[in-house]
């Protein structure tokens, strides 16, 4: 284990990269996912068809296909993105597609009386979504959203494909050069486990806090 500790600075650099990637992906994926989810429910027919196609295509392919297509596609057409930007974009595209489904599912579970009541109060479309429907759908979204966040944290390990900087890459690099595979993998397992477990516990705690706010 001491060989891992001796390389802690390098591994910490990798972990910071992974955390940064995760933060960007969660924020971007969640926000665009909510917009797409609302579009999936209330959009006009062409918008709905477009988002539906996007969601189904992204969810039907392995994530690495999206990552590679974006990584090479952007550079082939001379759009200059850093590896971090392109992997963050690819993971966000993936997260947004899943988030859109989550939002659609939980918002359609809100009784239509809520929409009618909001309309009767004279709320227009976006205020209706923002202050009536989303707050009630939020507790329902919390569980799947937490799962998605854990999934995305695990998926950041796929950054090893295109960047030379993420946590799993730094583990793999050290493990190969030092020849102590098991020690490094054990360390990586512990780190991933602690992070993912913390995310899912935090999500469970938050959703328990949110429960009392549900109107029925």
């Amino acid at each position, binding site marked *: 284990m001491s060989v891992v500790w001796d390389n802690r600075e390098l591994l910490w650099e990798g972990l910071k990269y992974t955390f940064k990637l995760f933060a960007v992906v969660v924020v971007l994926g969640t926000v665009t996912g909510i917009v797409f989810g609302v579009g999936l429910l209330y959009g006009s027919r062409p918008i709905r068809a477009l988002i539906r196609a996007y969601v189904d295509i992204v969810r039907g392919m392995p994530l690495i296909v999206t990552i590679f297509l974006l990584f090479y596609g952007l550079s082939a057409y001379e759009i200059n993105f850093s590896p971090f930007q392109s992997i963050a974009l690819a993971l966000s595209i993936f997260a947004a597609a899943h988030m859109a489904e989550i939002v659609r599912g939980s918002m359609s579970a809100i009784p239509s009386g809520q929409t009618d009541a909001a309309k009767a109060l004279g709320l227009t479309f976006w205020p209706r979504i923002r202050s009536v429907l989303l707050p009630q759908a939020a507790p329902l979204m919390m569980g799947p959203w937490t799962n998605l966040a854990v999934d995305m944290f*695990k998926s950041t390990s*796929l950054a090893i494909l295109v960047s030379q900087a993420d946590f799993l890459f730094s583990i793999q690099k050290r493990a190969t050069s030092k020849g102590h595979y098991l020690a490094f993998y054990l360390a990586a*397992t512990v780190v991933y486990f602690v992070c993912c477990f913390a995310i899912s516990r935090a999500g469970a705690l938050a959703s328990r806090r949110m429960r009392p706010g549900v109107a029925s």
Partner: protein
Amino acid sequence: MLPDVSSLPLLFSLRLPYQLRWEYVLDHKEWFIDGLLLALWMSLIALVCGSVIGLVCAFARSSGNRILSVAVTCYVEFIRNVPLLLLVFIFYFGLPQAFPRRSDERELILTLLPTPERTFTVALSIYAGAYLTEIFGAGILSVSRRYLDAGRSLGLSRLSLARFVVGPIMLRTVLPSLSNTFISLFKDTGVAFFIGSRDLSFAANKVNTDFFRPIEGWVAAGVLYLLTAWIIAFALRFAEGRIKWSV
């Protein structure tokens, strides 16, 4: 195989710097077809092995034995919170290293897991087992108490209660989740090419590394993944609808 896609280059090749040339994919169709079949085969085996693991673990957890249920919970939580890629690395690079060179254990591991394909399938099975434990566990919980009471009053032992009462009833509620799991395992095989397994992503990567044609290779692989996943989903949903259940 890909006639509709091959009409695309005319659209793009007019002024963009990257010229799409599909002949690199079409000339090596066999890489993609073999890769697709291998991916399907690996995910099918992982589903079967994972279901066995999942069934055993789910019944072990619901048995009421404290040690067993703690062990199962540890296994499930461990797998669910670690990336599949790391798991694959552990099995492929780490496991043979756990034992000294030329020791019997190391030789045994290398004979049991001789190829990347085999190693990946084993890793994927263990990965699937954790998710399927949760699915079967939920299925067991969904079986109503009345059936259990009826079975007990017939004097069934715990084992035959599981085998003849809980199992068949649970299977109906679990079947849709099983087909979802199969599809997601099929998509998970995409990471197998990291360790050199010759699946569908390997074909795409080979088109990239051999001919510097990344877009064509990955688009072809993506379309194949997508179509296969849709066909599987459609076929399984159709099959589920056809099965006549009787209780």
